[in-house]
């Protein structure tokens, strides 16, 4: 265990930022999002949640994949080299840290995604334990310990001190020069956090029956129409979600060539599955159902029961009309546990 006074945080970060980009929760225009840290940035390690999750660091919202040029009848294609620069992402909470495992299942399974893989390879993930879970946090349901997140290194903030623990070699390299510390304060904080986490309103959601075996039963559940009634079909939940990974591939004609880029997409959008002759999900009920079925049934069915939800609570906080996955779990759940 190492430690660092919060007062010297900037100094430490400057040292790291000299060699590689540091991505951290930064407040800009009143909102905290992950961004590239500079000495002028207002770092907000204390913020429980960033608006957007940390997935941007590996799977950015927009990413150029290749360029095309046309001359006469001939085409040429030039692939964009996946960014191969080392970077540190700092302050990732336990829920977001778990989301990387989930995204890995998607992007690093065969055939792996070169863009995502390159970023994963070059990243050092420094997580931060939660000290003050919010009432709509529910990560504990997915076996996540908010007090002891994973990553290459883990941080705790106790009063004015930042405690750090390296979990991997990458992490070790980052913290090795810091002052040693004992873990008593961290342990105390962990106990407190865990105590709160256990008492959270959604600490014990009933996830029984959310598996591949109950696929058709859940799919045909009569509650979907009611659950989705107020859904605006916007992409807020998708875009703030740390595990949503659907994307679109689009072409942009710059006037000098065509850029093929990919960008986040949302299964909540009416054109997500739209083809020239129609769509297989004609109403918001089907689209809404798809999103939650995927997170709670389809994904675990293909991934040894791993849910594609980390309980970060962003959709609870951000849905314009207060729809969210907890309401779905409760409505569709079997008998109360």
């Amino acid at each position, binding site marked *: 265990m190492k430690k660092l006074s919060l007062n010297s945080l900037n100094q430490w970060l400057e040292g790291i930022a000299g060699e590689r980009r540091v991505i951290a929760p930064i407040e800009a225009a009143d909102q905290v999002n992950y961004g590239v840290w500079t000495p002028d940035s207002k770092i907000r390690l204390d913020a429980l949640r960033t608006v957007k999750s940390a997935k941007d660091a590996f799977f950015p919202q927009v990413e150029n994949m290749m360029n095309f040029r046309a001359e006469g009848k001939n085409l040429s294609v030039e692939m964009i080299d996946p960014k191969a620069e080392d970077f540190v992402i700092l302050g990732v909470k336990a829920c977001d840290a778990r989301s990387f495992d989930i995204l890995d299942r998607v992007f690093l399974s065969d*055939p792996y995604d070169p863009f995502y893989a390159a970023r994963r390879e070059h990243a050092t993930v420094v997580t931060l334990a939660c000290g003050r879970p919010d009432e709509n946090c529910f990560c504990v349901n997915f076996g996540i310990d908010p007090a002891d997140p994973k990553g290459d290194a883990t941080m705790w903030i106790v009063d004015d001190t930042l405690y750090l623990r390296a979990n991997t070699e990458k992490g070790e390299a980052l913290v090795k020069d810091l002052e040693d510390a004992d873990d008593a304060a961290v342990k105390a904080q962990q106990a407190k956090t865990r105590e709160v986490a256990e008492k959270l309103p959604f600490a014990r959601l009933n996830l029984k029956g959310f598996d591949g075996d109950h696929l058709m039963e859940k799919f045909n559940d009569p509650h979907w129409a009611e659950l989705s009634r107020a859904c605006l079909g916007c992409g807020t939940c998708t875009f703030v979600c740390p595990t949503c990974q659907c994307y679109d591939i689009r072409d942009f004609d710059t006037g000098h060539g065509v850029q093929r880029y990919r960008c986040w997409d949302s299964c909540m959008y009416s054109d997500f599955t739209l083809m020239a002759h129609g769509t297989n999900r004609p109403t918001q009920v089907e689209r809404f159902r798809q999103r939650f079925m995927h997170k709670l049934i389809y994904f675990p069915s293909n991934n040894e029961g791993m849910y594609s939800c980390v309980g970060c609570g962003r959709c609870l906080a951000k849905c314009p009309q207060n729809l969210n996955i907890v309401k779905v779990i409760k409505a569709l759940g079997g008998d109360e546990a």
Partner: protein
Amino acid sequence: MRTDNLIPMIGVVTEIRQDTPDIKTFRVEKPEGGKCFEHMPGQCAMLSIPGVGEAMFSITSSPTVKDYQEFSIKKCGCLTEWLHAMEPGQQIMIRGPFGKHFPVEDALKGKDLLFIAGGVGLAPLHSVINYVLDNRDDYGKVDIVYGSRSKDDLLDIDEIQSSWMDPANRMDVHLTIDRPQEGWDGHVAFVPTYVEELGFDPNKTVLVCGPPIMIKFVLQALTKLGFQKEQVYTTMELRMKCGLGKCGRCNIGDKYVCKDGPVFRFDELDELPSEY
């Protein structure tokens, strides 16, 4: 592990045939000649025109054709309109192959085969039929039921008549059109009705492709004739983008059509939500 699946290669359209008023067949080769990649019957490829779009099409030609791949494409949207407006010699982008193919090397081997196709639905089966034809001795009796709206909408009619109907090839081809038409002395009936009329032996293995409504009724007809769902294969069409089972839009239940399909056996489909 392949990493280039998202990056297409350049293909040249070397030949374009107008098959029906709204279907053209495109022959695609590498700029230096030869096939862009190897594939198996039932697999698909992503064709794209930069700036217009990219879409998944099933490969119509048989893997036994060594020099090129062919795609029979119906005009129905922005990209297909562009494709239909193309001239031979133009380049397009192509990537693939994608998806599961028909089990021509295992489950189908040695079986009596019944192919049932409607309209442009012949395109994916075309690949299998020619594959079977080129390995004729590996399979039992072959029947083909093919129907379309009118005689002008029958795909590959020249090839059907000259090759598939050639007695030497030992295949029974049953053509039908939906409505009586001048100049047509063949059968007139909807495909499902014709299948029922023909009354096939329920020991055959069936490969069916066509419009959803046709498939639904063909399945009913087959059930009546005593076929089991485990004997029937089909291929699906959904909106796809990445082809890698990652972008999410062809996700049906716990399957991704681009990766786990497009070829499915009907008993597999029964376990999926009916969102296709």
